[in-house]
């Protein structure tokens, strides 16, 4: 018995750790089927009604729509700007490069509550009404750092000889970028974009300061939690989780299929 225990200790530990990690997700999933009406706290019985009508709760899909719009816009802008910064930092030597590297890193280390509050102070001082666009600006700001760090790692691992080879083979500067550099850095850019989107979609603290009367999905959940979160929030949360899971599994499958073809 004790030998069995010592031999399987690592497995037992792993299972317990995974259970710990996934209890909240499991709870969210289970309660998306709760026949609870407006107060989704106690188990009232199984129903598919929430899944059939995810927009059933008032304003929930308006909030979701706002989150998606803000997410897409800020991902797009942050990915473009961040990629350009990553190339500049990874490829060129210029005065102030190392201090730029440090400054890019700082927003990630700054507490969100501080950034959110100071951004709001800035918008108020500039007499800008907070709303949709101030939220987008705020999200772009904190996403850029993550994009730069992710893409820069990819740019750094790119062999400069490949670009020289392209230029040697009659590709001008634009063609070299288009045909060699960009395709090789693309996986890094895609990873950065996914990261930016999930950061933006998920953000509550900075959004809460700078979004004015606009409601995003996290803000909706926060506000409704005072009276009780509707089960539709669990449906949307579960759906987001499943979509992310699907993307990860699909990526893994494509990757291993490629690896198989290679061998």
């Amino acid at each position: 018995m004790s030998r069995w225990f010592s031999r399987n200790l690592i497995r037992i530990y792993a299972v317990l750790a995974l259970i710990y990690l996934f209890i909240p997700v499991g709870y969210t999933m289970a309660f998306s089927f709760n026949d609870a009406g407006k107060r989704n706290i106690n188990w009232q019985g199984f129903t598919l009604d929430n899944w059939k009508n995810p927009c059933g709760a008032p304003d929930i899909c308006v909030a979701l729509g706002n989150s998606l719009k803000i997410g897409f816009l800020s991902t797009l802008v942050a990915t473009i700007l961040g990629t350009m910064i990553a190339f500049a930092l990874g490829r060129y030597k210029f005065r102030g490069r190392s201090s730029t590297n440090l400054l890019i890193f700082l927003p990630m280390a700054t507490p969100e509550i501080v950034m959110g509050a100071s951004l709001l102070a800035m918008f108020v001082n500039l007499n800008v009404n907070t709303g949709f666009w101030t939220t987008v600006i705020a999200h772009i700001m904190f996403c850029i750092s993550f994009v730069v760090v992710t893409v820069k790692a990819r740019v750094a691992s790119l062999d400069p000889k490949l670009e020289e080879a392209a230029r040697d083979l009659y590709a001008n500067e634009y063609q070299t970028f288009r045909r060699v550099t960009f395709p090789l850095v693309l996986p890094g850019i895609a990873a950065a974009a996914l990261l930016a989107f999930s950061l933006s979609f998920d953000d509550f603290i900075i959004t809460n300061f700078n979004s004015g009367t606009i409601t995003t999905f996290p803000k909706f959940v926060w506000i409704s939690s005072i009276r009780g979160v509707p089960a539709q929030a669990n449906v949307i949360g579960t759906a987001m989780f499943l979509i992310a899971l699907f993307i990860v599994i699909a990526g893994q499958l494509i990757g291993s299929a490629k690896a198989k073809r290679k061998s």
Partner: protein
Amino acid sequence: MVDLTSSAVGDLQLRNITKRFADFVAVDDLTLTIPKGSFFALLGPSGCGKTTTLRMIAGLEEPTSGSIHIGDTDITHTKPYQRPVNTVFQNYALFPHLTIFENVAFGLRRRGMKDVDEAVTKVLALVELGHLKDRKPGQLSGGQQQRIAVARAIVNRPALLLLDEPLGALDLKLRRQMQIELKWIQTEVGITFVHVTHDQEEAMTMADTIAVMNKGKIEQMGSPVELYENPKTVFVANFLGQSNLIEATVQTNSGAETSVDIHGSRILLPSSRNTSSKSKVLVGVRPEKINIQTEGSSAGKNSLSGGVVTDISFVGVSTQYQVEMPWKQEIMVFEQNDGGAPNIRKGDQVTLSWEPHFTFALDSES
């Protein structure tokens, strides 16, 4: 798109090329003509400026001063993609995201060629890798990648093909095979090959002409045989094969033969092979030219006695002896293992002898 391929033909000329990186002079006032259609090797130790020279010809570096010409066309300041020059990079630099076919077609497509199938198929057949055209570079072995790198360059029919240590990453057996193959491809396509290497054997196997570079300058240029038999500097004598260089004093240098004194022994050499005009010279003789005999045996014309064998190593085709002379200098002697090998053991007293015409003399300071 600018295309010089048709207009620039002829010899490659480097005129007074200098390349400076901050305080370091990589290439120092280099002037060189590489005849069209030749297989030319730039040989030298790492850091001698050979790769920088190659990169300037490719257009990947710009010379600090001087000019580069192909025939009558000045290409000093043209972009790499506007030069009729292609490079085989040291680690091949194949595009990992493209298939072998697309790698080879890359240059043709960039020059706006629509139908690349025939040219690509033909060059892949030349390097015998047509069956791998749909693979990615990561799925190929080192030798196969090397051949694709060559194919990707020569498919463009450049006026000049540059090879930057192309065989450095291969193992010895494959390297030998590729040396022969590259030489064959060069004769087949008739393109000028400029090959940069630090491997003297590789340069001698493949090149028609070798330029030995040291510290940004060319020490000596010539055919492999010329460089080996008539090294003009101490550096060349030591870099191409092994040389025994012994300090000597010139006694007479009238007429066809020069006579020098080595620690009391009189050594003769053809005056034409004395490149020094000083009285103190370094007398050189290649290890395989020397006969080794036990003390007291009859010796040839040039002989040095009083040596003691300090080491013997058997390397298959030859036996290598290390002999310490009375003036404490080690001299290398290679004897063919053709049955006539003398029975000599470590510690034996020996006499070294060789024919005067195998002897050369160099300036001692260089």
